[in-house]
């Protein structure tokens, strides 16, 4: 295994068009990008630049109009719902702006849910380990509404990580958090990338969040216009301002 493994997520010539001829909108326009294993990529761009569409297409939530998407070596461009469900169980984890925990289940049960859905018996130790990794070992029995926003987001990340997915998709993970909680969550994500080699793709508005990533990709009008490696918050903010000007 000396040669570099295939990228967990790879988009080749992806175009996504919404609407029909007269009112067609090109949300993504011939996007080529690979997300290398063990790296954290932030996707930025002005509103309507196609960030979310990129994330949805890369995660197999939306079909592409043309081009192909590969996740963990599987071409998902024409995959069936069953195939996509299997991928979501094993290869993909999600974290959202609005946490999206199941309100009726405890933190522990929320984290175990993907395993249970996959028909695996969740090992108590695995679940505890993941919860401990996000620093919530003592909040296992709490329900989401008994947790702060930052804690809820950490539970959501634990849930996404429990299946050891090939890629973690994060959609504005700090968007609903205060500065302190946001910083904690970003630290946590950084640690997951560094310690576990968790490939992560994150859409964000926040230059500070983007600066935690290994590289930042800038989108505008559905095209990738720029990249930065290991940028500072200031650089990201400046680049974003240029883009929006």
């Amino acid at each position, binding site marked *: 295994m000396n040669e570099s493994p295939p990228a967990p997520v790879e988009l080749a010539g992806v175009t996504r068009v919404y609407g029909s001829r007269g009112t067609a909108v090109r949300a993504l326009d011939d996007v080529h990008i690979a997300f290398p294993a063990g790296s954290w990529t932030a996707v930025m761009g002005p509103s309507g630049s196609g960030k979310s569409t990129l994330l949805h297409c890369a995660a197999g939530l939306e079909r592409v109009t043309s081009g192909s998407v590969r996740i963990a070596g599987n071409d998902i461009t024409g995959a069936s719902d069953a195939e996509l469900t299997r991928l979501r169980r094993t290869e993909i984890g*999600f974290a959202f702006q609005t946490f999206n925990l199941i309100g009726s*289940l405890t933190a522990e*049960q929320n984290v175990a*849910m993907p395993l249970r859905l996959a028909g695996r018996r969740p090992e108590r130790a695995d679940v505890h380990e993941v919860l401990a990794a996000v620093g919530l070992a003592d909040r296992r029995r709490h329900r989401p509404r008994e947790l702060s926003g930052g804690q809820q987001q950490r539970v959501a990340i634990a849930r996404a990580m429990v299946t050891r997915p090939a890629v973690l998709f994060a959609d504005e993970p700090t968007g609903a958090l205060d500065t302190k909680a946001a910083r904690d969550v970003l630290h946590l994500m950084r640690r997951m990338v560094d310690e576990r080699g968790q490939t992560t793709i994150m859409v964000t508005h926040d230059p500070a969040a983007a600066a935690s990533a290994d590289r930042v990709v800038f989108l505008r009008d559905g095209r990738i216009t720029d990249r930065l490696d290991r940028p500072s918050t200031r650089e990201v903010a400046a680049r974003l301002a240029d883009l929006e000007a």
Partner: protein
Amino acid sequence: MLLLAWNTFRERWQVFAGAILTVCLGVALVQSSLLALVAAATAPIPAGLAPEAALALQGAYDGALTLLSMVLALAAFVAVFIVASTFGFTVAQRRRELALLRLTGASRGQVRSLLTGEAVLLGLAGSVLGIALGLPLARFQTWLLVRLDFAPAGFAAPWRPWVVAVSLGTGVLIAVLGVLAASRRAAAIRPQEALREDAGAAQVMTVSRWVLGLVFTAGAVVLFVLFPAGDAAMPVWFVQLTPFLVTVPLVVGFAALAPLIVPLAAGLLGLVCRGALGELALANLRSDARRSAATAAPVMVLFAFTAGIGGTLATVGEAGRQELHATVDGDFAVAADRDATAAIAGIDGVAAVSAETEAMFELAFAEAGASWYVAGLGTVVDPDAYVATHDIAPVAGDLADLSGASVAVSPSEDYERDWRVGDTLRMRLGGEEFDVRVAALLPPTVAGPHYLLSPDLLPEGAASWNHVVRLADGADRDAVAASLNEIGTVSTVDGWIAASAAADERLTRDIMIVLLGMTMLYTAIAIVNAVVIAASNRRREFAAARVTGLGRGQVVWLAFLESQAVVAIGLVLGALAAAGSVLGAAVALRHLVGITAVSVQWSLLVGLAVGAAVIVGATSLVTALSATRTPPIRLVASRE
């Protein structure tokens, strides 16, 4: 999956409590009707009873049986309808949660089994409660039947152990059936809907809704058109079934198409509703057509069935009244305890008099080795006198031949028997069995009599006679009336017809109480339920409205306006479905007996409409008040 089902159940118990309640009441209603039906079907006729009494008792049980089968059918239909709409609605409200499950790796099958698991739990819980509630309900139902004379005194519906299994099965089955369509829809929810901030019901008019709605509406239209044009020998009582043939499919069709109709209706209401609040209320109606439709559906059922069944029965009754007016050619009706023809005929100024009394009999039928008896009610008349006081022309044969062992029959009584003049029937009357000849065929009739018996068939001991008296031209009405008064109880023919029409109305009212009373109470509870469930999901929405600048009072008023608009939509749809049945009955009657009559129980319907508006309005006021108790900013800011 079962754990998740159980947890969701615990978490959302307020919504599910509503679902359990609908199952519980539905099961109780079906169980009680079933017990009463079985009791009526197996009721023993005590030995040693006089043949007449035994016949009357059997007749009473048969009547109760017919009524109860309709009660059971209606209860089952309403239970399935209400439970299905409640469940479908709760699933629609959980789109986001279900999409999230899909996103975390649940397959379509798993979403389906989650919902089915919930339905089984709800069904079980509801059934157990329903079985217990069914006991006092059955007692009440039999009491009501006896009280309103639909069942003989002493009629009881004993508890039967097998009914537990039936009720449990029914409850779970209803719940699962109700969730079936909803779970298919839920499984089709796309995972990315969890990512959207506003994961409202995306597509309201699903293919299955279209299919269901169009098929049932078209079916109702076809039945409506075919019904009166069918075999002319259709019996008149069959007309009373139009609510089941026309209103039921229309209700199902409208319920399915309701999300389509709601925006239309909202547009119409927009013409009257002015002002910012009115516009906002209608916009809310339109944008959540699914919710509006779910609340309007039980209102529609309530109104459609009450107006449809009541209107049809009243229309048949009105046709009967008009028929009597047209047929009876007399001035006075005299009730006496004996045949007073001779005495009345002797009074100065009386041109014609005809005495009649009723007799119960049975006709024997045999076919393919089996033989059975069918009970009938005949009127014993003297044909010459009868023709002199009634405008009646036989379709075939001659009423003058009505002597000896002979009868005249109206085909409106029974469409399966193709009787002809000269046929021989086997009759059992007054404990004897003998052959009678069909002397004449009467035209179809609504008010009866369906059988005229020859005076030679008069059973002994007839103690209740009615005489129709026609005066000669220029006779002194008052003098004749005074003389008649010495013979029996006198009323004018108009008064007599009015009295019989009033008795008919009372019967209609009683039938509706038995048939619809409990079912409609159930529907009213379902309406409250739907409003509460609908409001439970709107705290955020209300909060957002308040942050936009609406006062708490305005938000509550908004919810109230919406609720009234929803009631209006339900009432209009219900009225349409009912009108289909009443018009169908009217057209069929016109075809059968040539009488054009439509009768609508306006006071009942207005009362019902006001009642529905008050119930829904009050419930939405209360729920909106409680949903806006929290300061809005906390709700707007808080997630999940």
